[in-house]
């Protein structure tokens, strides 16, 4: 047991170390581009990583790591659930926005009248349901017509982005605002409570942390979870065994969307509080990275979400203290992810060569690996 745990941790850790080395070399080579630095400045990588670490390990750094991780964990769980059933949900962007907008709508409608104890749960519920609806649509289309969810979710991203924009500049916009903006919900008792002695650690973080064991339980300890995994592993066999695979597709996509909508809702209620025209985040796509890194394992999603959240929390310090340009930081993060993903791929390929894997949809091979390592 311990050997397996060490084994499963050693490779990602080695990948991170190698990635940081490669990133450090890249920063070293490009240090001439940073204002105030000599070309090939060996101190720059050290300063940059020092700043990154200092941005993460302070008390405020740790809380903002948790805050940034929250939507990534929730969204990552959403994508992972889809992967388990062999469904690739790229619609996170739209589902996230629907969750945000639904929460804004609920709070600005009732937040002033009712107290936060009624308004916030309702807003979370509305956000989750709106996300679920946004996931239901591609699920329904796939189940009834066979339209591939990759295509429909990508298309829906555009549609839902514009729906969200319409809502922000239409029914939700503040009268007399110089540019379309929704109400700042923290004025309306509508923001998720920020814990005392912290600056930004809102209770939405606990929703994400709670969702991890819940989703793990659903996937591995319930009939629904078994059916989801079976449908993912081999849809024909699942159908032959009497499972209603169409219903499962709709359910899984809705659950995936629900988690993504919840991510949007929590981000809005706890972090952003207000949306302006064009409101958008990269979380819908980053969540795919989170799920892939974790091989669709809910527990792994917790850690990969924290990793990406930490990189977000640390990057402002890298920019402002070490003077590393944001482009270089993005490239560095991409390198780290690349190393990790290559690592996962390498394993999958090795397994396939060894003949232990049956041919499966590409999205699912990662999931297969994780089901074995978690139990």
């Amino acid at each position, binding site marked *: 047991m311990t050997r397996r745990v060490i*084994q499963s941790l*050693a*490779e990602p850790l*080695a*990948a991170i*170390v*190698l990635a*940081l*080395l490669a990133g450090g*070399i890249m920063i070293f080579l490009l240090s001439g581009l940073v204002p105030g630095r000599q070309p090939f400045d*060996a*101190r720059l*990588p*050290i*300063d940059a*990583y*020092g*700043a*990154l*670490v*200092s941005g*993460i*390990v302070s008390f405020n750094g740790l809380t903002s790591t948790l805050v*940034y991780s929250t939507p990534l964990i929730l969204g990552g769980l959403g994508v992972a659930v889809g992967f388990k059933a062999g469904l690739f949900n790229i619609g996170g962007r739209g589902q996230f926005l629907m969750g945000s907008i639904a929460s804004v709508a609920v709070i600005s409608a009732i937040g002033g009248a009712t107290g936060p104890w009624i308004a916030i749960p309702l807003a979370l519920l509305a956000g989750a349901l709106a996300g679920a609806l946004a996931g239901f649509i591609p699920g329904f289309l796939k189940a009834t017509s066979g339209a591939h969810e990759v295509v429909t979710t990508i298309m829906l991203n555009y549609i839902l982005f514009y729906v969200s*924009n319409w809502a922000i*500049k239409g029914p939700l916009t*503040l*009268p*007399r*605002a*110089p*540019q379309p903006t929704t*109400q*700042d919900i923290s*004025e309306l008792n509508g923001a998720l409570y920020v814990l005392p002695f912290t*600056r*930004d650690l809102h209770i939405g973080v606990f929703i994400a942390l709670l969702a991890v064991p819940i989703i793990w339980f659903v996937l591995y300890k319930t009939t629904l979870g078994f059916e989801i995994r079976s449908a993912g592993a081999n849809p024909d066999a699942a159908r032959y065994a009497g499972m209603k695979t169409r219903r499962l597709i709709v359910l899984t996509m809705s659950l995936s969307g629900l988690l993504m909508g919840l991510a949007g809702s929590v*981000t809005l209620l706890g*972090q*952003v509080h*207000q949306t*302006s*025209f*064009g409101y*958008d*985040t990269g*979380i819908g796509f980053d969540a795919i990275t989170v799920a892939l890194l974790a091989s669709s394992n809910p527990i792994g999603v917790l850690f990969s979400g924290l990793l990406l959240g930490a990189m*977000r*929390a640390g*990057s*402002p*310090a890298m*920019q*402002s*203290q*070490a*003077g590393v*340009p*944001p*482009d270089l930081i993005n490239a560095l993060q991409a390198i780290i992810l690349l190393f990790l993903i290559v690592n996962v791929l390498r394993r999958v390929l090795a397994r396939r060569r060894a003949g232990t894997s049956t041919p499966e949809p590409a999205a699912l091979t990662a999931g297969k690996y994780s089901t074995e390592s978690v139990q």
Partner: protein
Amino acid sequence: MARLPRKAIALLAVSALVAAACSSAAATASPTATPTPAATPTPAATPTPATSASASAPATAFKIGVVTDVGRVDDKNFNQYSYQGAKDAADALGASVSYLVPKDATEYASDIQQFVDQKTNVIVTVGFNLGNDTIKAAKANPDIWFVAVDVAPCVDATGAPDSTFACKGDAATLLPHLIGIQFQEDQAGYLAGMVAAAVSKTGVIGQLGGINSNPAVVRYMQGYELGAKAYKSSVTVDSGFFSTGDITKAYGDPVFGKTFSQQFISQKKVDVLFQVAGATGNGALDAACAAGIYAIGVDVDQYQSYPSADKCIVTSAEKHLASAVSQTIKAINAGTAKGGISKFNAANDGIGISAFQNTSVTLPSDLQGKLDAALAAMKAGTLTTCTAQCGTWTGK
């Protein structure tokens, strides 16, 4: 299964070797750097280099931080010139300056907070989208100066952001360390209108704005029309807007901007086109080039910032962002700055038009004299550059 751990061990061993090699290289290059860079993922290992790096500046130094809007710091637009202004001020004052580019809207508040934590003296935020978070930060940190570019701070009676936009509170007294930089766009538009009327051969000139409900856009356009008519009263000014409500179409869609402008040019038969529409307007510049007519840029020197259309750009109606930000920071440093809206216009070098760099344009010999006279009159405050309802579109 026995293969896997060996592979993992091999990986670790290789990485340890590389780490060792790398750390010795780093150590020879700079003897003070003690920990290996490879050790950084374990948080406890290296908290020291960051503090030593950031502490290299003396504690008393004047520190300036810039939080740009989403995008790039070298966007040849608001982000870049606002940062440029902060940098100019920093160079003049011997201060340090750094910037943060938020990845998306979720980072606005925390990026501002980052500079608060670093005990920054002046925090510059760029654009309307950061306005609310800037006001909140200014309220929470009354000792730090905040400069909000292109924002008119609107607060309620407690000094919090006023979402009803009634603006009942007096921002200047409630938040005395918050300065909102605003520009008198009509003056820049007026000068651009004079140039347009001067280079037009047919006497029919055009202008395209993003949305008619945006007062800044409308001020540019009202000034443009007045300036054109002042240069030559017979000139016809045709105006249009890209959108009635869709901000993406209005300011963010150059492809749409080009097709829309092509129709506008062919219908109205204009031979000079002024754009007041951000990225959508860049499409208008392209359309003007394609149609072989002159174009006038907006906000920044677009002959420089949008070189793909430089063969037809005559000049640009400029907000002198760098000058405004730099002046504001210097005033803060000198102790002469006051909270509230800081209005930049011709009198304090806040607006202007870009130098004529396009040698293919022949300018009437009287133009420069008339421009200088108009600018002097603006500085003296004797020239009306906007309509009675300045900022409210009353045309068709």
